[in-house]
């Protein structure tokens, strides 16, 4: 491709965009709105995901050790549990320690436990942390089967709810992205189709004198991609402002609420929107050209 050919592509693309200013403006506007909605939902789900991870990380499973389990077996159990798939860490809590913790929780009514030191009714236990929420159920089942484990408890319902919620969100997300992308594609396709239509005579002559399909396509593809980039960049700017302010507000007012950091996350999001804009513009233009190139 010669440099002056590339210059020609840009010149033609920009000429058309000026000619149809209002239409171009409208389609950038629609693309922009679509991308803001899209970006907003991406931000929301990504943050919910992030929070879910945070909660998941805090989920623990307690495995109670049967009475009369030997010390060697307990040592063996520590080893076996830490090697179970999905286990991040395991900690042995002796019944003495459990009693102490209970005492701490009771606070001023600690005296209720007086006398239990000598005849501790509590059992030894293991505190098991999983590396992700989805594995909690599986780990609990495996623990139950180990010799010397009497009982296993974990926040079963909370875990299942959390898993269902994040999965539903992901599915909804995919549908939304697909739907909005298709809608944007059609908007850009129609805009480009107008400029293609305005140039149909030229296209026909180009075909007759032997211009290659790609030579004819490029100005229109550039138009589509420029529209997509423009829409995505402005939408990215708007999302940046919103998220930047929200992030700062949360950091001060609700500090325990974990939000995704602006860099790199928001920057990645804007980059992805721009790439999406380019792709949608490209395919929109390709589709609007189809019939006119078949001469």
């Amino acid at each position: 491709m010669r440099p002056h050919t590339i210059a020609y592509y840009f010149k033609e693309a920009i000429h058309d965009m000026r000619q149809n200013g209002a239409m171009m403006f409208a389609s950038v506007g629609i693309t922009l709105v679509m991308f803001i909605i899209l970006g907003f939902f991406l931000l929301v789900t990504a943050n919910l995901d992030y929070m879910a991870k945070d909660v998941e990380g805090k989920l623990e499973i307690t495995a109670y050790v049967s009475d009369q389990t030997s010390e060697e077996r307990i040592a063996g159990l520590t080893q076996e549990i830490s090697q179970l798939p999905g286990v991040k860490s395991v900690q042995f809590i002796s019944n003495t320690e459990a009693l102490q913790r209970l005492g701490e929780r009771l606070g001023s009514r600690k005296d209720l436990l007086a006398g239990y030191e000598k005849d501790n009714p509590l059992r030894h236990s293991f505190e098991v942390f999983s590396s992700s929420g989805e594995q909690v159920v599986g780990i609990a089942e495996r623990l139950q089967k180990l010799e010397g484990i009497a009982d296993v408890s974990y926040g079963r319902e909370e875990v299942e709810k959390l898993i269902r919620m994040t999965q539903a969100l992901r599915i909804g997300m995919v549908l939304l992205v697909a739907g909005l992308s298709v809608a944007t594609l059609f908007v850009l396709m129609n805009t480009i189709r107008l400029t293609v239509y305005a140039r149909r005579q030229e296209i026909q002559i180009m075909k007759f004198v032997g211009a290659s399909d790609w030579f004819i396509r490029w100005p229109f593809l550039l138009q589509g991609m420029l529209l997509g980039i423009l829409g995505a960049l402005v939408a990215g700017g708007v999302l940046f402002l919103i998220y930047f302010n929200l992030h700062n507000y949360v950091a001060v007012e609700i500090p325990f609420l974990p939000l995704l950091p602006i860099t790199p996350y928001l920057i990645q999001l804007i980059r992805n929107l721009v790439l999406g804009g380019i792709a949608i513009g490209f395919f929109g233009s390709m589709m609007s050209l189809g019939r006119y190139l078949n001469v």
Partner: protein
Amino acid sequence: MLTFDSVSKTYKNQVCALDNVSFTIERGEFVYLVGPSGAGKSTILRLLTAEEKPTSGQIIIENQVVNRLRRSRVAALRRRLGVVFQDFRLLPQKTVYENVAFAMQVVEASGTAIRDRVPLLLELVGLKDRHESYPNQLSGGEQQRVALARALANDPGILICDEPTGNLDPATSWEIMRLLSLVNERGMTIIMATHDSEMVNRMKHRVIVIENGKKVRDRMEGGYLN
């Protein structure tokens, strides 16, 4: 150099436009394609420019089987063909110069080549002084001369003319025909579809007559009807 070998064409709506047509045209020939409208002349031209594919048979131009060309090779074929239409098909927003230069631009000719060649072409068709005019400021004959200059821009070996004088009065038609003869004398192969019987009788060249999709006559000595 150009051969139609038992070519038939049936369109999707079952209209049989061409029925087993064969002929060969040598380099540098001037051939009239005559016959009533709807006889199949336009179909022959569309097959030559690879706008259509034949239902059966082969079209060969300079040892290339046109109907088997891949889509990406069709552009290369068309650079070796110049096409002149009955309705000129100039771009109204471009000047005479730009219309001719456009044909070279879109096949990625260099700026120098364009600046060198376009004035020569305009001189050939006698419109050197009108290079800044727009098509709507020109007469029909002048517009057709611009179209001819454009068809010659990429130095094709074959010129395909679809009723080039169909929209012109007899005097102007005669001018265009003189130009075509001049170009032909310089070695250009010309295939011209027409039903201008007077022209065919006056300026004698080989005549291929098409009626109802069949080749009914092919005479080297020319003449429309006899």
